[in-house]
Protein backbone atom coordinates (compact mmCIF):
# COMPACT_ATOMS: atom_id res chain seq x y z
CA UNK A 1 0.00 0.00 0.00
CA UNK A 2 2.82 2.44 0.73
CA UNK A 3 3.99 2.62 -2.91
CA UNK A 4 0.41 3.23 -4.04
CA UNK A 5 0.06 5.97 -1.49
CA UNK A 6 3.33 7.55 -2.62
CA UNK A 7 2.16 7.33 -6.23
CA UNK A 8 -1.20 8.86 -5.36
CA UNK A 9 0.50 11.75 -3.59
CA UNK A 10 2.97 12.36 -6.39
CA UNK A 11 0.23 12.18 -8.99
CA UNK A 12 -1.97 14.64 -7.10
CA UNK A 13 0.91 17.02 -6.72
CA UNK A 14 2.09 16.96 -10.32
CA UNK A 15 -1.28 16.73 -12.03
CA UNK A 16 -2.09 20.13 -10.57
CA UNK A 17 1.31 21.57 -11.33
CA UNK A 18 1.11 23.96 -14.33
CA UNK A 19 4.69 23.27 -15.37
CA UNK A 20 4.08 19.50 -15.40
CA UNK A 21 0.97 19.99 -17.53
CA UNK A 22 2.82 22.26 -19.89
CA UNK A 23 5.69 19.82 -20.23
CA UNK A 24 3.33 16.90 -20.87
CA UNK A 25 1.38 18.99 -23.37
CA UNK A 26 4.55 19.72 -25.29
CA UNK A 27 5.50 16.03 -25.40
CA UNK A 28 2.01 15.10 -26.57
CA UNK A 29 2.03 17.71 -29.33
CA UNK A 30 5.56 17.44 -30.64
CA UNK A 31 6.47 13.82 -29.91
CA UNK A 32 3.16 11.92 -29.99
CA UNK A 33 1.42 14.00 -32.66
CA UNK A 34 -1.57 15.58 -30.88
CA UNK A 35 -4.12 16.79 -31.57
CA UNK A 36 -5.41 13.93 -33.73
CA UNK A 37 -7.97 14.69 -36.42
CA UNK A 38 -11.68 13.89 -36.30
CA UNK A 39 -12.30 12.36 -39.71
CA UNK A 40 -15.64 12.00 -41.44
CA UNK A 41 -15.70 8.49 -42.87
CA UNK A 42 -17.98 9.42 -45.76
CA UNK A 43 -17.55 6.24 -47.79
CA UNK A 44 -18.37 4.09 -44.78
CA UNK A 45 -21.30 6.38 -43.97
CA UNK A 46 -22.66 5.99 -47.50
CA UNK A 47 -22.07 2.24 -47.43
CA UNK A 48 -23.97 1.77 -44.17
CA UNK A 49 -26.70 4.31 -44.88
CA UNK A 50 -27.67 6.17 -41.72
CA UNK A 51 -25.83 8.37 -39.27
CA UNK A 52 -22.58 10.08 -40.25
CA UNK A 53 -19.62 8.17 -38.83
CA UNK A 54 -16.68 10.18 -37.57
CA UNK A 55 -13.40 8.57 -36.60
CA UNK A 56 -11.23 9.97 -33.84
CA UNK A 57 -7.88 9.17 -35.34
CA UNK A 58 -5.82 7.94 -32.38
CA UNK A 59 -4.33 5.45 -34.82
CA UNK A 60 -2.27 8.32 -36.22
CA UNK A 61 -0.40 8.83 -32.98
CA UNK A 62 3.26 7.89 -32.65
CA UNK A 63 3.42 4.15 -32.06
CA UNK A 64 0.07 3.66 -33.72
CA UNK A 65 -2.31 3.81 -30.78
CA UNK A 66 -3.74 5.92 -27.97
CA UNK A 67 -1.39 4.22 -25.52
CA UNK A 68 1.28 6.91 -25.85
CA UNK A 69 -1.03 9.49 -24.17
CA UNK A 70 -0.72 7.53 -20.95
CA UNK A 71 2.89 6.35 -21.19
CA UNK A 72 4.21 9.87 -21.70
CA UNK A 73 2.22 11.09 -18.71
CA UNK A 74 3.31 8.30 -16.40
CA UNK A 75 6.93 8.21 -17.59
CA UNK A 76 7.18 11.92 -16.93
CA UNK A 77 5.70 11.35 -13.48
CA UNK A 78 8.15 8.50 -12.79
CA UNK A 79 10.99 10.78 -13.71
CA UNK A 80 9.73 13.44 -11.32
CA UNK A 81 9.51 10.76 -8.61
CA UNK A 82 13.15 9.88 -9.23
CA UNK A 83 12.49 6.32 -10.49
CA UNK A 84 14.78 5.17 -13.28
CA UNK A 85 13.54 1.64 -13.84
CA UNK A 86 10.13 1.32 -15.48
CA UNK A 87 8.19 -1.92 -15.72
CA UNK A 88 5.03 -2.49 -17.74
CA UNK A 89 2.73 -5.28 -18.88
CA UNK A 90 1.44 -5.57 -22.38
CA UNK A 91 -1.20 -7.59 -24.20
CA UNK A 92 -1.16 -6.75 -27.88
CA UNK A 93 2.18 -5.04 -27.40
CA UNK A 94 0.89 -1.54 -28.07
CA UNK A 95 1.31 -0.44 -24.47
CA UNK A 96 4.72 -2.08 -24.38
CA UNK A 97 5.79 -0.24 -27.51
CA UNK A 98 4.42 3.07 -26.20
CA UNK A 99 6.23 2.49 -22.89
CA UNK A 100 9.48 1.73 -24.70
CA UNK A 101 9.09 4.89 -26.79
CA UNK A 102 8.33 7.17 -23.85
CA UNK A 103 11.18 5.67 -21.82
CA UNK A 104 13.71 6.02 -24.62
CA UNK A 105 12.70 9.63 -25.15
CA UNK A 106 12.86 10.46 -21.45
CA UNK A 107 16.03 8.49 -20.72
CA UNK A 108 14.44 5.77 -18.58
CA UNK A 109 15.05 2.02 -18.54
CA UNK A 110 12.05 -0.06 -19.66
CA UNK A 111 11.25 -3.72 -18.98
CA UNK A 112 8.02 -5.19 -20.34
CA UNK A 113 6.17 -8.34 -19.28
CA UNK A 114 4.27 -10.08 -22.05
CA UNK A 115 2.45 -13.41 -22.10
CA UNK A 116 4.28 -15.90 -24.29
CA UNK A 117 1.10 -16.61 -26.24
CA UNK A 118 0.75 -12.90 -26.98
CA UNK A 119 4.43 -12.77 -27.99
CA UNK A 120 3.67 -15.35 -30.65
CA UNK A 121 0.64 -13.62 -32.06
CA UNK A 122 2.04 -10.08 -31.90
CA UNK A 123 5.62 -10.79 -32.90
CA UNK A 124 6.05 -7.51 -34.72
CA UNK A 125 5.53 -5.55 -31.52
CA UNK A 126 8.06 -7.71 -29.67
CA UNK A 127 10.70 -6.71 -32.24
CA UNK A 128 9.66 -3.08 -31.99
CA UNK A 129 10.00 -3.03 -28.19
CA UNK A 130 13.44 -4.60 -28.40
CA UNK A 131 14.59 -2.17 -31.08
CA UNK A 132 13.43 0.69 -28.89
CA UNK A 133 15.75 -0.55 -26.17
CA UNK A 134 13.25 -2.27 -23.87
CA UNK A 135 13.79 -5.66 -22.31
CA UNK A 136 10.90 -8.07 -22.91
CA UNK A 137 10.19 -10.78 -20.31
CA UNK A 138 8.08 -13.68 -21.59
CA UNK A 139 5.41 -14.75 -19.08
CA UNK A 140 4.79 -18.49 -19.01
CA UNK A 141 2.42 -18.64 -16.05
CA UNK A 142 -1.36 -19.11 -16.14
CA UNK A 143 -2.99 -18.42 -19.49
CA UNK A 144 0.17 -16.69 -20.83
CA UNK A 145 -1.77 -13.57 -21.80
CA UNK A 146 -2.39 -10.07 -20.44
CA UNK A 147 -3.75 -11.01 -17.00
CA UNK A 148 -0.66 -13.12 -16.32
CA UNK A 149 1.61 -10.34 -17.57
CA UNK A 150 -0.04 -8.05 -15.00
CA UNK A 151 0.45 -10.69 -12.27
CA UNK A 152 4.13 -10.90 -13.15
CA UNK A 153 4.59 -7.12 -13.30
CA UNK A 154 2.96 -6.79 -9.86
CA UNK A 155 5.32 -9.45 -8.50
CA UNK A 156 8.28 -7.57 -9.94
CA UNK A 157 7.01 -4.31 -8.48
CA UNK A 158 6.69 -5.58 -4.91
CA UNK A 159 10.18 -7.03 -5.21
CA UNK A 160 11.90 -3.94 -6.63
CA UNK A 161 9.58 -1.29 -5.32
CA UNK A 162 12.31 1.03 -4.11
CA UNK A 163 13.74 1.94 -7.49
CA UNK A 164 10.97 0.82 -9.82
CA UNK A 165 7.90 2.52 -11.25
CA UNK A 166 5.06 0.32 -12.51
CA UNK A 167 3.63 1.92 -15.63
CA UNK A 168 0.22 0.26 -15.93
CA UNK A 169 -1.32 0.53 -19.38
CA UNK A 170 -5.03 0.65 -18.74
CA UNK A 171 -7.67 1.99 -16.35
CA UNK A 172 -7.32 -1.14 -14.20
CA UNK A 173 -5.52 -2.17 -11.04
CA UNK A 174 -5.50 -0.51 -7.64
CA UNK A 175 -6.09 3.17 -7.03
CA UNK A 176 -4.73 5.57 -8.28
CA UNK A 177 -4.15 3.78 -11.62
CA UNK A 178 -7.74 3.81 -12.94
CA UNK A 179 -8.09 7.53 -12.21
CA UNK A 180 -4.64 8.50 -13.35
CA UNK A 181 -4.76 6.59 -16.64
CA UNK A 182 -8.23 7.98 -17.33
CA UNK A 183 -6.97 11.51 -16.78
CA UNK A 184 -4.06 10.99 -19.16
CA UNK A 185 -6.41 9.48 -21.78
CA UNK A 186 -9.16 12.04 -21.35
CA UNK A 187 -7.37 14.28 -23.86
CA UNK A 188 -9.08 12.12 -26.53
CA UNK A 189 -12.59 13.12 -25.49
CA UNK A 190 -11.67 16.74 -24.84
CA UNK A 191 -10.42 17.12 -28.40
CA UNK A 192 -13.21 15.07 -29.94
CA UNK A 193 -15.95 17.09 -28.23
CA UNK A 194 -14.46 20.36 -29.36
CA UNK A 195 -13.93 19.06 -32.90
CA UNK A 196 -17.47 17.74 -33.38
CA UNK A 197 -18.93 21.03 -32.13
CA UNK A 198 -16.78 22.82 -34.70
CA UNK A 199 -17.70 20.59 -37.64
CA UNK A 200 -21.32 19.69 -36.80
CA UNK A 201 -22.30 22.55 -34.54
CA UNK A 202 -23.88 19.97 -32.22
CA UNK A 203 -23.03 16.98 -30.12
CA UNK A 204 -23.05 13.48 -31.61
CA UNK A 205 -25.87 11.02 -31.04
CA UNK A 206 -23.40 8.45 -29.76
CA UNK A 207 -19.78 7.76 -28.94
CA UNK A 208 -18.48 4.24 -29.52
CA UNK A 209 -15.21 2.70 -28.33
CA UNK A 210 -13.82 -0.76 -27.69
CA UNK A 211 -13.26 -1.97 -24.13
CA UNK A 212 -10.52 -4.32 -23.02
CA UNK A 213 -9.23 -2.82 -19.81
CA UNK A 214 -11.06 0.25 -21.03
CA UNK A 215 -8.57 3.10 -21.35
CA UNK A 216 -9.36 4.43 -24.82
CA UNK A 217 -13.09 4.21 -24.12
CA UNK A 218 -12.95 5.98 -20.78
CA UNK A 219 -10.63 8.51 -22.41
CA UNK A 220 -13.20 9.45 -25.03
CA UNK A 221 -16.28 8.98 -22.78
CA UNK A 222 -15.02 11.21 -20.03
CA UNK A 223 -15.72 14.56 -21.68
CA UNK A 224 -19.22 13.45 -22.73
CA UNK A 225 -20.34 12.04 -19.37
CA UNK A 226 -22.42 15.09 -18.53
CA UNK A 227 -23.90 15.37 -22.03
CA UNK A 228 -26.76 13.06 -21.22
CA UNK A 229 -28.13 13.25 -24.76
CA UNK A 230 -24.99 11.50 -26.02
CA UNK A 231 -25.23 7.70 -25.81
CA UNK A 232 -22.01 5.99 -24.80
CA UNK A 233 -21.29 2.48 -26.11
CA UNK A 234 -18.44 0.31 -24.88
CA UNK A 235 -17.77 -2.66 -27.13
CA UNK A 236 -16.34 -5.78 -25.55
CA UNK A 237 -14.77 -8.72 -27.32
CA UNK A 238 -17.50 -11.27 -28.05
CA UNK A 239 -14.88 -13.76 -29.24
CA UNK A 240 -16.42 -16.97 -30.50
CA UNK A 241 -19.49 -16.92 -28.28
CA UNK A 242 -20.74 -15.73 -24.90
CA UNK A 243 -20.10 -19.15 -23.31
CA UNK A 244 -17.47 -19.31 -20.57
CA UNK A 245 -13.93 -19.16 -21.90
CA UNK A 246 -15.03 -18.14 -25.39
CA UNK A 247 -14.99 -14.34 -25.05
CA UNK A 248 -13.41 -11.43 -23.22
CA UNK A 249 -16.57 -9.60 -22.18
CA UNK A 250 -16.65 -9.24 -18.38
CA UNK A 251 -19.29 -6.50 -18.35
CA UNK A 252 -21.65 -8.46 -20.55
CA UNK A 253 -20.86 -12.00 -19.39
CA UNK A 254 -19.07 -11.70 -16.04
CA UNK A 255 -20.02 -10.85 -12.48
CA UNK A 256 -18.65 -8.72 -9.67
CA UNK A 257 -15.33 -9.75 -8.24
CA UNK A 258 -11.90 -8.61 -7.17
CA UNK A 259 -8.90 -8.95 -9.44
CA UNK A 260 -5.59 -7.08 -9.58
CA UNK A 261 -6.51 -4.83 -6.68
CA UNK A 262 -9.84 -3.60 -8.04
CA UNK A 263 -13.47 -4.47 -7.52
CA UNK A 264 -15.14 -4.77 -10.88
CA UNK A 265 -16.76 -7.27 -13.25
CA UNK A 266 -14.68 -10.37 -13.74
CA UNK A 267 -15.04 -13.45 -15.91
CA UNK A 268 -14.93 -16.19 -13.30
CA UNK A 269 -16.33 -19.58 -12.43
CA UNK A 270 -18.66 -20.47 -9.56
CA UNK A 271 -15.77 -20.76 -7.10
CA UNK A 272 -14.29 -17.38 -8.01
CA UNK A 273 -11.43 -18.70 -10.15
CA UNK A 274 -10.66 -16.29 -12.96
CA UNK A 275 -11.48 -17.75 -16.34
CA UNK A 276 -9.38 -17.79 -19.44
CA UNK A 277 -10.51 -15.45 -22.17
CA UNK A 278 -10.66 -15.66 -25.91
CA UNK A 279 -10.57 -12.95 -28.50
CA UNK A 280 -8.99 -12.51 -31.90
CA UNK A 281 -7.56 -9.28 -30.55
CA UNK A 282 -4.84 -9.66 -27.92
CA UNK A 283 -5.47 -6.14 -26.62
CA UNK A 284 -9.01 -6.98 -25.50
CA UNK A 285 -8.09 -10.39 -24.09
CA UNK A 286 -8.52 -9.60 -20.39
CA UNK A 287 -10.99 -11.11 -17.87
CA UNK A 288 -11.49 -7.87 -15.90
CA UNK A 289 -12.35 -4.30 -16.81
CA UNK A 290 -11.71 -0.83 -15.42
CA UNK A 291 -13.91 -0.24 -12.36
CA UNK A 292 -15.21 3.05 -13.74
CA UNK A 293 -16.84 1.15 -16.60
CA UNK A 294 -18.52 -1.12 -14.04
CA UNK A 295 -19.80 2.02 -12.38
CA UNK A 296 -21.01 3.60 -15.64
CA UNK A 297 -22.85 0.42 -16.55
CA UNK A 298 -24.51 0.07 -13.14
CA UNK A 299 -25.44 3.75 -13.20
CA UNK A 300 -26.98 3.29 -16.63
CA UNK A 301 -24.83 6.02 -18.17
CA UNK A 302 -23.02 3.80 -20.66
CA UNK A 303 -24.14 0.66 -22.48
CA UNK A 304 -21.89 -2.29 -23.04
CA UNK A 305 -22.28 -4.62 -25.98
CA UNK A 306 -20.19 -7.26 -27.72
CA UNK A 307 -18.86 -7.71 -31.22
CA UNK A 308 -17.72 -11.21 -32.19
CA UNK A 309 -14.45 -12.20 -33.88
CA UNK A 310 -16.05 -12.58 -37.34
CA UNK A 311 -17.87 -9.24 -37.01
CA UNK A 312 -14.62 -7.53 -36.06
CA UNK A 313 -12.85 -9.05 -39.07
CA UNK A 314 -15.68 -7.87 -41.26
CA UNK A 315 -15.38 -4.36 -39.86
CA UNK A 316 -11.64 -4.46 -40.45
CA UNK A 317 -12.20 -5.36 -44.09
CA UNK A 318 -14.87 -2.71 -44.57
CA UNK A 319 -12.88 0.15 -43.09
CA UNK A 320 -9.72 -0.86 -44.94
CA UNK A 321 -11.37 -1.08 -48.31
CA UNK A 322 -13.88 1.75 -48.01
CA UNK A 323 -11.73 4.31 -46.26
CA UNK A 324 -8.14 3.19 -46.82
CA UNK A 325 -7.69 2.91 -43.07
CA UNK A 326 -6.66 -0.36 -41.44
CA UNK A 327 -7.94 -0.37 -37.87
CA UNK A 328 -6.35 -2.40 -35.09
CA UNK A 329 -8.42 -5.52 -34.40
CA UNK A 330 -9.32 -3.95 -31.04
CA UNK A 331 -10.71 -0.81 -32.70
CA UNK A 332 -12.39 -2.94 -35.38
CA UNK A 333 -14.76 -4.08 -32.63
CA UNK A 334 -15.87 -0.47 -32.16
CA UNK A 335 -16.26 -0.02 -35.92
CA UNK A 336 -18.34 -3.20 -36.03
CA UNK A 337 -20.82 -1.89 -33.49
CA UNK A 338 -20.87 1.61 -34.97
CA UNK A 339 -21.90 0.18 -38.33
CA UNK A 340 -24.89 -1.54 -36.75
CA UNK A 341 -25.76 1.57 -34.79
CA UNK A 342 -25.40 4.01 -37.70
CA UNK A 343 -27.88 1.98 -39.72
CA UNK A 344 -30.51 2.45 -37.00
CA UNK A 345 -30.07 6.23 -36.84
CA UNK A 346 -31.06 9.08 -39.13
CA UNK A 347 -28.83 10.82 -41.66
CA UNK A 348 -28.82 13.98 -39.58
CA UNK A 349 -27.28 12.16 -36.64
CA UNK A 350 -23.62 11.54 -36.15
CA UNK A 351 -21.54 8.99 -34.29
CA UNK A 352 -17.96 9.28 -33.13
CA UNK A 353 -15.93 6.08 -33.10
CA UNK A 354 -12.66 6.07 -31.27
CA UNK A 355 -10.23 4.56 -33.72
CA UNK A 356 -7.84 3.71 -30.93
CA UNK A 357 -5.11 2.06 -32.97
CA UNK A 358 -3.92 1.09 -36.41
CA UNK A 359 -3.94 -2.43 -37.74
CA UNK A 360 -0.40 -2.90 -39.03
CA UNK A 361 0.43 -5.10 -36.04
CA UNK A 362 -2.45 -7.41 -36.95
CA UNK A 363 -1.77 -8.09 -40.63
CA UNK A 364 -0.38 -11.58 -39.94
CA UNK A 365 -3.47 -12.63 -38.00
CA UNK A 366 -5.82 -11.08 -40.51
CA UNK A 367 -4.05 -12.69 -43.45
CA UNK A 368 -4.81 -16.06 -41.82
CA UNK A 369 -8.52 -15.28 -41.50
CA UNK A 370 -9.37 -13.31 -44.61
CA UNK A 371 -8.72 -15.14 -47.88
CA UNK A 372 -6.63 -13.01 -50.23
Amino acid at each position, binding site marked *: *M*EPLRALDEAYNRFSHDPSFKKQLGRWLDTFAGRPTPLYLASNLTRHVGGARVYLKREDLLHGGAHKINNTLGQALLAKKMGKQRIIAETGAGQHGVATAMACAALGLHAEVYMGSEDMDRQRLNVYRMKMLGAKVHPVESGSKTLKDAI*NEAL*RDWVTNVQDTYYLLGSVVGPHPYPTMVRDFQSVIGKEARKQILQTDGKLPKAVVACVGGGSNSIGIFHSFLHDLEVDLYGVEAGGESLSPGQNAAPLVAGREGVLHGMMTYVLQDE*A*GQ*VQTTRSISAGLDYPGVGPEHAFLMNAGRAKYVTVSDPEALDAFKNLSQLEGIMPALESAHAIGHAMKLAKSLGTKDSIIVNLSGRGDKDVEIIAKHIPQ
Partner: protein
Amino acid sequence: MIAYLTGGDPDPKAFLANCTALIEGGADIVEVGIPFSDPIADGPVIQASSMRALSQGTTPTGVLDLIGELSSQFPVPFVVLSYYNPILAMGLDRFLRKGHESGVDGIVVPDLPLEESDEFRNMALRHNVDNIYLAAPNTSRTRLRTILDKSKGFLYLVSLYGVTGPRDLLSPQALEAVKKVKSLARGKVPVSAGFGVSQPEHVSAIIKSGADGAIVGSALVNIVSHHLESPNEAPDHLKSTVAKLKASTRKS
Protein backbone atom coordinates in the same frame (compact mmCIF):
# COMPACT_ATOMS: atom_id res chain seq x y z
CA MET B 1 6.43 -22.55 14.01
CA ILE B 2 3.72 -22.05 11.41
CA ALA B 3 3.74 -24.50 8.52
CA TYR B 4 1.99 -23.83 5.20
CA LEU B 5 0.69 -26.10 2.48
CA THR B 6 -1.65 -25.41 -0.44
CA GLY B 7 -5.04 -27.07 0.08
CA GLY B 8 -5.74 -30.05 -2.15
CA ASP B 9 -2.18 -30.23 -3.51
CA PRO B 10 -1.31 -32.60 -5.10
CA ASP B 11 -4.61 -34.39 -4.36
CA PRO B 12 -6.94 -34.43 -1.35
CA LYS B 13 -5.65 -37.69 0.13
CA ALA B 14 -1.97 -36.79 -0.15
CA PHE B 15 -2.74 -33.34 1.23
CA LEU B 16 -4.32 -34.84 4.35
CA ALA B 17 -1.31 -37.11 4.89
CA ASN B 18 1.07 -34.20 4.36
CA CYS B 19 -0.77 -31.95 6.81
CA THR B 20 -0.77 -34.72 9.38
CA ALA B 21 3.00 -34.92 8.96
CA LEU B 22 3.32 -31.18 9.63
CA ILE B 23 1.43 -31.63 12.87
CA GLU B 24 3.43 -34.70 13.87
CA GLY B 25 6.61 -32.78 13.11
CA GLY B 26 5.58 -30.22 15.69
CA ALA B 27 3.93 -27.38 13.76
CA ASP B 28 2.22 -25.05 16.23
CA ILE B 29 -0.18 -23.70 13.63
CA VAL B 30 -1.05 -25.14 10.23
CA GLU B 31 -1.70 -22.62 7.49
CA VAL B 32 -3.63 -23.85 4.46
CA GLY B 33 -3.79 -21.93 1.20
CA ILE B 34 -6.95 -21.92 -0.86
CA PRO B 35 -5.68 -22.28 -4.41
CA PHE B 36 -6.45 -19.31 -6.68
CA SER B 37 -5.98 -18.81 -10.40
CA ASP B 38 -4.06 -15.54 -9.98
CA PRO B 39 -1.93 -15.68 -6.83
CA ILE B 40 -0.14 -12.34 -7.20
CA ALA B 41 1.64 -12.50 -3.84
CA ASP B 42 3.15 -15.89 -4.57
CA GLY B 43 6.33 -16.96 -6.29
CA PRO B 44 6.70 -19.90 -8.70
CA VAL B 45 6.61 -22.67 -6.03
CA ILE B 46 3.21 -21.80 -4.61
CA GLN B 47 1.90 -20.76 -8.02
CA ALA B 48 2.66 -24.25 -9.28
CA SER B 49 1.07 -25.89 -6.24
CA SER B 50 -2.07 -23.80 -6.76
CA MET B 51 -2.28 -24.88 -10.39
CA ARG B 52 -1.82 -28.54 -9.39
CA ALA B 53 -4.60 -28.26 -6.83
CA LEU B 54 -6.93 -26.44 -9.23
CA SER B 55 -6.31 -28.99 -11.97
CA GLN B 56 -7.59 -31.62 -9.50
CA GLY B 57 -10.84 -29.67 -9.24
CA THR B 58 -10.10 -28.26 -5.79
CA THR B 59 -12.66 -25.70 -4.59
CA PRO B 60 -12.69 -23.42 -1.54
CA THR B 61 -15.47 -25.54 0.00
CA GLY B 62 -13.44 -28.66 -0.66
CA VAL B 63 -10.41 -27.19 1.13
CA LEU B 64 -12.53 -26.17 4.13
CA ASP B 65 -13.92 -29.71 4.28
CA LEU B 66 -10.37 -31.10 4.30
CA ILE B 67 -9.47 -28.76 7.15
CA GLY B 68 -12.62 -29.98 8.93
CA GLU B 69 -11.33 -33.56 8.74
CA LEU B 70 -7.98 -32.54 10.20
CA SER B 71 -9.33 -30.27 12.91
CA SER B 72 -11.60 -33.01 14.21
CA GLN B 73 -8.52 -35.17 14.78
CA PHE B 74 -5.91 -32.66 15.93
CA PRO B 75 -6.13 -29.81 18.42
CA VAL B 76 -3.64 -27.62 16.50
CA PRO B 77 -4.98 -24.25 15.28
CA PHE B 78 -5.68 -23.81 11.57
CA VAL B 79 -5.24 -20.65 9.56
CA VAL B 80 -6.52 -20.22 6.03
CA LEU B 81 -4.85 -18.08 3.40
CA SER B 82 -7.18 -17.02 0.61
CA TYR B 83 -7.19 -14.32 -2.02
CA TYR B 84 -10.34 -12.25 -1.79
CA ASN B 85 -12.21 -13.30 -4.92
CA PRO B 86 -12.93 -16.91 -3.92
CA ILE B 87 -14.25 -15.60 -0.58
CA LEU B 88 -16.40 -13.03 -2.33
CA ALA B 89 -17.70 -15.62 -4.78
CA MET B 90 -18.88 -17.84 -1.92
CA GLY B 91 -20.17 -14.86 0.04
CA LEU B 92 -18.40 -13.46 3.11
CA ASP B 93 -20.96 -14.81 5.54
CA ARG B 94 -21.09 -18.29 4.05
CA PHE B 95 -17.33 -18.54 3.76
CA LEU B 96 -16.66 -17.50 7.33
CA ARG B 97 -19.46 -19.62 8.79
CA LYS B 98 -18.23 -22.64 6.89
CA GLY B 99 -14.67 -21.82 7.95
CA HIS B 100 -15.61 -21.63 11.58
CA GLU B 101 -17.55 -24.88 11.39
CA SER B 102 -14.53 -26.53 9.79
CA GLY B 103 -12.29 -25.49 12.64
CA VAL B 104 -10.58 -22.52 11.01
CA ASP B 105 -9.18 -20.20 13.69
CA GLY B 106 -7.79 -17.41 11.56
CA ILE B 107 -7.72 -16.12 8.02
CA VAL B 108 -5.19 -14.18 5.95
CA VAL B 109 -6.32 -12.34 2.80
CA PRO B 110 -3.22 -11.05 1.01
CA ASP B 111 -5.06 -8.86 -1.49
CA LEU B 112 -7.48 -7.21 0.93
CA PRO B 113 -5.81 -4.08 2.29
CA LEU B 114 -6.64 -2.66 5.71
CA GLU B 115 -8.49 0.26 4.11
CA GLU B 116 -11.01 -2.04 2.41
CA SER B 117 -11.31 -4.64 5.13
CA ASP B 118 -13.94 -3.34 7.58
CA GLU B 119 -16.84 -5.41 6.31
CA PHE B 120 -14.76 -8.56 6.21
CA ARG B 121 -13.25 -7.88 9.62
CA ASN B 122 -16.63 -7.37 11.26
CA MET B 123 -17.99 -10.49 9.67
CA ALA B 124 -14.94 -12.46 10.82
CA LEU B 125 -15.40 -11.16 14.37
CA ARG B 126 -19.01 -12.29 14.29
CA HIS B 127 -17.98 -15.79 13.24
CA ASN B 128 -15.16 -16.04 15.74
CA VAL B 129 -12.47 -16.24 13.10
CA ASP B 130 -9.36 -14.13 13.63
CA ASN B 131 -8.61 -11.76 10.79
CA ILE B 132 -4.87 -11.75 10.33
CA TYR B 133 -3.39 -8.71 8.63
CA LEU B 134 -0.17 -8.51 6.68
CA ALA B 135 2.48 -5.83 7.08
CA ALA B 136 5.56 -5.23 4.93
CA PRO B 137 9.00 -3.79 5.69
CA ASN B 138 7.91 -0.45 4.19
CA THR B 139 4.58 -0.19 6.02
CA SER B 140 4.56 3.21 7.72
CA ARG B 141 4.48 3.42 11.51
CA THR B 142 1.10 5.15 11.46
CA ARG B 143 -0.48 2.46 9.32
CA LEU B 144 1.27 -0.25 11.31
CA ARG B 145 -0.33 1.07 14.51
CA THR B 146 -3.80 0.82 12.96
CA ILE B 147 -3.05 -2.63 11.58
CA LEU B 148 -1.90 -3.81 15.00
CA ASP B 149 -5.00 -2.33 16.62
CA LYS B 150 -7.27 -4.21 14.25
CA SER B 151 -5.28 -7.46 14.18
CA LYS B 152 -6.56 -10.61 15.79
CA GLY B 153 -4.62 -13.83 16.19
CA PHE B 154 -1.26 -12.60 15.02
CA LEU B 155 0.31 -10.09 12.68
CA TYR B 156 1.74 -11.65 9.52
CA LEU B 157 4.95 -9.80 8.81
CA VAL B 158 6.21 -10.04 5.24
CA SER B 159 9.95 -10.17 5.88
CA LEU B 160 11.12 -8.96 2.50
CA TYR B 161 10.31 -6.95 -0.61
CA GLY B 162 8.81 -9.54 -2.89
CA VAL B 163 6.66 -12.61 -3.23
CA THR B 164 6.68 -15.98 -1.44
CA GLY B 165 9.46 -18.41 -2.26
CA PRO B 166 12.48 -20.04 -0.65
CA ARG B 167 15.63 -17.92 -0.48
CA ASP B 168 19.17 -18.89 0.52
CA LEU B 169 19.59 -15.93 2.80
CA LEU B 170 17.20 -14.09 5.03
CA SER B 171 16.42 -10.69 3.55
CA PRO B 172 18.43 -7.78 4.90
CA GLN B 173 15.18 -6.07 5.96
CA ALA B 174 13.82 -9.02 7.91
CA LEU B 175 15.31 -8.56 11.37
CA GLU B 176 14.97 -4.79 11.26
CA ALA B 177 11.30 -5.16 10.36
CA VAL B 178 10.67 -7.64 13.16
CA LYS B 179 12.17 -5.25 15.71
CA LYS B 180 10.16 -2.30 14.42
CA VAL B 181 6.87 -4.20 14.48
CA LYS B 182 7.53 -5.82 17.85
CA SER B 183 8.25 -2.46 19.44
CA LEU B 184 4.94 -1.11 18.16
CA ALA B 185 2.97 -4.26 19.03
CA ARG B 186 3.96 -3.94 22.70
CA GLY B 187 2.97 -7.53 23.39
CA LYS B 188 -0.66 -6.96 22.44
CA VAL B 189 -0.51 -9.02 19.23
CA PRO B 190 1.96 -11.80 18.47
CA VAL B 191 4.12 -11.17 15.39
CA SER B 192 5.00 -13.95 12.97
CA ALA B 193 7.29 -13.46 10.00
CA GLY B 194 7.12 -15.23 6.66
CA PHE B 195 8.02 -14.91 2.92
CA GLY B 196 11.48 -16.21 2.13
CA VAL B 197 11.79 -17.93 5.50
CA SER B 198 12.88 -21.42 4.56
CA GLN B 199 15.89 -22.64 6.57
CA PRO B 200 16.28 -23.46 10.27
CA GLU B 201 18.86 -20.63 10.53
CA HIS B 202 16.30 -18.14 9.18
CA VAL B 203 13.77 -19.29 11.76
CA SER B 204 16.28 -19.07 14.53
CA ALA B 205 17.39 -15.55 13.54
CA ILE B 206 13.81 -14.33 13.30
CA ILE B 207 12.85 -15.72 16.69
CA LYS B 208 16.03 -14.33 18.29
CA SER B 209 15.24 -10.87 16.97
CA GLY B 210 11.97 -11.01 18.87
CA ALA B 211 9.33 -12.52 16.60
CA ASP B 212 6.77 -14.80 18.20
CA GLY B 213 6.56 -17.08 15.22
CA ALA B 214 8.09 -17.98 11.87
CA ILE B 215 6.04 -19.01 8.84
CA VAL B 216 7.51 -21.50 6.40
CA GLY B 217 5.61 -22.21 3.18
CA SER B 218 7.44 -22.63 -0.10
CA ALA B 219 10.19 -24.77 1.42
CA LEU B 220 7.52 -27.26 2.51
CA VAL B 221 5.53 -27.02 -0.72
CA ASN B 222 8.80 -27.80 -2.51
CA ILE B 223 8.94 -31.12 -0.66
CA VAL B 224 5.47 -31.90 -1.99
CA SER B 225 6.44 -30.94 -5.53
CA HIS B 226 9.63 -33.00 -5.42
CA HIS B 227 7.63 -36.10 -4.54
CA LEU B 228 4.90 -35.97 -7.15
CA GLU B 229 6.05 -39.36 -8.49
CA SER B 230 6.32 -40.84 -4.99
CA PRO B 231 3.74 -38.98 -2.87
CA ASN B 232 3.96 -41.59 -0.11
CA GLU B 233 7.46 -40.45 0.71
CA ALA B 234 6.54 -36.78 1.17
CA PRO B 235 5.12 -37.04 4.73
CA ASP B 236 8.35 -38.37 6.25
CA HIS B 237 10.36 -35.57 4.68
CA LEU B 238 7.82 -32.97 5.75
CA LYS B 239 7.78 -34.30 9.30
CA SER B 240 11.56 -34.23 9.71
CA THR B 241 11.86 -30.80 8.07
CA VAL B 242 9.20 -29.32 10.32
CA ALA B 243 10.87 -30.92 13.35
CA LYS B 244 14.15 -29.21 12.43
CA LEU B 245 12.43 -25.89 11.89
CA LYS B 246 10.58 -26.28 15.16
CA ALA B 247 13.80 -27.07 17.03
CA SER B 248 15.33 -23.85 15.74
CA THR B 249 12.54 -21.79 17.28
CA ARG B 250 13.98 -22.51 20.73
CA LYS B 251 15.84 -19.47 21.87
CA SER B 252 18.62 -21.13 23.86
